[in-house]
């Protein structure tokens, strides 16, 4: 299990790096999908099969598909690739990169010094346990999420409609 965990983690990091550096938007999105699948494997090896399955269904299967769909519809062609290349000059990424590095260092410190933060749970958490937590103690959060999604739907509809006319 540990071997698979590290293997998928390496794939996730590498694919994410490629997703950032590709200039062709569809290629970048494909690497993003690979990265999300690798993250699903990581979650699976950590004992969260439900979260792993949802990672595939929602992120790789829905959100990235939406992105590919939009990129396909807008079909920007070679102009975008040139612009993307311009974005990748060091002056564009060096400051965000440094800030992320600081965050990463903090994360490493947290994992190293707080023992509870690291390591997998003793046993796998099945889908039933997740459902009981969501609609038991966290029911209010679920209802709030539904309102948020309602707002998202209405917003998407009105933005989409204005474009059309």
């Amino acid at each position, binding site marked *: *299990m540990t071997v*698979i965990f590290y293997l998928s983690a390496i794939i996730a990091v590498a694919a994410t790096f490629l997703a950032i550096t590709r200039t062709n938007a569809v290629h970048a999105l494909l690497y993003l999908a690979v990265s999300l699948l690798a993250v699903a494997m990581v979650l699976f090896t950590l004992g969260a099969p*439900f979260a792993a399955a*949802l990672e595939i*269904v*929602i992120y790789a299967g*829905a*959100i990235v*598909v*939406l992105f590919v*769909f*939009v990129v396909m*519809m*807008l*079909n*920007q*062609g070679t102009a975008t690739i040139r612009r993307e290349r311009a974005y990748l000059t060091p002056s564009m990424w060096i400051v965000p990169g440094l800030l992320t590095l600081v965050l990463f260092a903090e994360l490493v410190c947290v994992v190293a010094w707080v023992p509870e933060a690291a390591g997998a749970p003793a046993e796998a958490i099945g*889908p*039933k*346990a*997740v*459902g*009981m937590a*969501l*609609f*038991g103690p966290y*029911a209010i959060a*679920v*209802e709030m*999420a*539904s*309102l948020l*999604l*309602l707002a*998202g*739907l*209405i917003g*998407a*509809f009105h933005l*989409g*409609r204005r*474009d*059309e*006319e």
Partner: protein
Amino acid sequence: MTPEAWYILLYSAGVLSVAVGMVVVSFVLGQRHRERATDEPYESGIATTGSARLRFSARFYLVAMLFVIFDLEAVFIFSWAVALRELGWAGYAAALVFIGVLVAALVYEWRMGALDWGVAKRKNRSDAPSEETRK
């Protein structure tokens, strides 16, 4: 690692080699030929006009957006469905409220015509109370 995980890994390896094998065998065995129009995209036999990098109506985007949001809602329903008996009536009430909001969203989209494509859409517009909103 459970033996089951090994079987699924083995199976995945088999599946991948089948897919790769199909592509490779076909590449090796396939014929090659070059004619004057071999390298042109197929456009019903006439010379191609313009690039295939077309732009499309935003309505397709709306479908995709609806899908992603409903997919998220469905996932919450999944997690409730599997624990239905353990959660009992309290969970049922919570899920009912959740589904209620979902239905409200669906009814709103339906009334606003977001679910109409093609002909129905145009008809909606002509007898529109929303006449003043469009320019």
